[in-house]
């Protein structure tokens, strides 16, 4: 054995590796700089550009943006009709999130705990395919399902269950001439479209709950439902929160669904879209956009505290 104990560098790669070893921060810097430039400069920069605009105002007649600092636009944001939009959106987002969580749980739970082999693949595909099939076509399909002379109406007529639809449509706040023009329709489509975003992280979180934990609970005398409430639910919570980040934020920002299904009442996304695109009122749109940013930042902070980031 004649080899030396210390090898000499064979080329620049070895020397560079040595440099990285001596200065670990350097490698980190090299790794993190490009993504940070992208996200920090492109993304945050754009956000800042947007926020800046919220301090401008718009010339009321010509619709041209006046680039002077003012809080006028924010004052406008606090008009009752705009507060209505914010409130309506947040309530909708919360309702959608809650419903998604409730609907997603059995699917995620079954897929995580009981589905095996090909069944597991089937569940996975069953969740992923709707997620990746064209969002727009799905929304339009719902319009067709919910229309007065659409499939639900047709089915209800055939089965004599039309009173259920009439019943829903007579609930205060959900009125409409048909499901497709009722806020309930908007809600239903939101739930449908975002449901997969809730299922996936939830399933991942549930899969991380060790089986021995459930056995320990049964071993100590807990019934199934007690185990569910006291062990599974708390341990799956980060996944639920992770999923809710998606459903909540997606509902806050969507502008296609309320345009196609519902009673024309504005949601934040639609308001932002129309103020920006249709009305050209970029300052007010920007001020509107600050609302979901704030809401999501608070939400994320809370979620982080609950350990939800690891479950994403």
């Amino acid at each position, binding site marked *: 054995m004649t080899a030396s104990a210390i*090898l000499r560098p064979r080329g620049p*790669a*070895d020397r*560079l*590796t040595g440099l990285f070893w001596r200065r*670990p921060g350097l*490698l980190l810097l090299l*790794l993190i700089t490009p*993504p*940070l430039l*992208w*996200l920090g400069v*492109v993304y945050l*920069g*754009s956000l800042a*550009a*947007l926020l800046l605009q919220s301090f401008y105002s718009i010339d009321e007649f010509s619709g041209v943006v006046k680039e002077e600092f003012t809080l006028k636009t924010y004052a406008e944001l606090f008009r009752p009709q705009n507060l209505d939009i914010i409130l309506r959106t947040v309530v909708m987002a919360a309702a959608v999130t809650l419903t998604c969580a409730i609907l997603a749980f059995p*699917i995620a739970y*079954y897929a*995580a705990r009981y589905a095996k082999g090909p069944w597991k693949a089937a569940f*996975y*595909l069953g*969740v*992923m*395919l*709707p997620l*990746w*099939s*064209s969002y*727009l*076509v*799905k929304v*339009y*399909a*719902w*319009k*067709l399902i919910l229309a007065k*002379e659409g499939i639900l109406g*047709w089915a209800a007529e055939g089965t004599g269950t039309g009173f259920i639809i009439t019943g829903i449509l007579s609930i205060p706040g959900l009125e409409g001439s048909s499901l497709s023009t009722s806020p309930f329709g908007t809600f239903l489509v939101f739930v449908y479209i975002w*449901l*997969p975003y809730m299922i996936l992280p939830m399933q991942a979180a549930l*899969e*991380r709950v*060790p089986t021995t934990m459930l*056995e320990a609970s*049964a071993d100590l005398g807990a019934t199934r439902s007690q185990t569910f409430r006291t062990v599974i639910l708390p341990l799956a919570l980060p996944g639920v929160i992770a999923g809710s*980040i998606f459903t909540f934020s*997606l509902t*806050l920002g969507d*502008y*296609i669904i309320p345009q196609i299904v519902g009673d024309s009442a504005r949601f934040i*996304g639609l308001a932002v879209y129309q103020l*920006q*695109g249709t009305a050209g009122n970029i300052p007010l749109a*920007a001020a509107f956009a600050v609302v*979901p*940013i704030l809401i999501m930042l608070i*939400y*994320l902070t809370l979620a982080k505290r609950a350990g939800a*980031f690891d479950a994403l």
Partner: protein
Amino acid sequence: MRSEASLGLKVAAIGGLLFLHLPILLIFLYAFTTEERTYEFPPPGLTTQWFGVAWNREDIWPPLYLSLKVAAISTALAMILGTLVAAAMARARFFGRDQISLLILLPIALPGVITGMSLRSAFGIMDIPFSTWTIVLGHATFCIVIVYNNAVARMRRLSGGIMEASADLGANSFQTFRYVLLPNLGSALLAGGMLAFALSFDEVIVTTFTAGQQSTLPIWMLNELVRPRQRPVTNVVAIVVFAATFFPILIAYYLTRGGSETAGMGK
């Protein structure tokens, strides 16, 4: 517990899956309807002519091509950037780590309309004309996190030991990357890439803001749906896209499957 699922759970799970799929069946059905302008239920008749019509509609091809191009470039960019952050984040804790993880998450946590609008106003301020690249800029931003999530989950599972083992055996950082990290991360990256691709391909919320006058496939669809003219053609396109994503998703599943199972069994 390895016991059987209760009936209620089964019903709820299967019911949930059906809820996810019934509208999709409808999309299939309406690709064959004879009614051209509006949807009407039940469809007045069935025909397969729309597949041929779609094939011959030349206005489909440029948006399709643009969408594929955008998705490919965005995915490639996102894979590079996402892997870099994942690699950095998997290395020791450092100052600002939490902030960075928040920053990565932000583009999907904030509503797309905001991402879109911000980029749009930034383009406006900087006088950047709309182009394929402006769309890519938006897409890559929210695709990074998809790749990042997949990569970081795999890195967490990958025992740090094998990287040290490689150095211990005399490999420099580049060799370790090439021979150890990449092969082990590969399937996760591929899976992340496929998801990112699919996400970019179907994106419409951000794209409307960053596309200017260009038309990606979803924007084309939106126009088609709003101004119906051979409406079943949109369904045909949706079906083709659906069929085209079926296998990539299946492959992505099998590539990362080991992951979820180990994750399920670990602490």
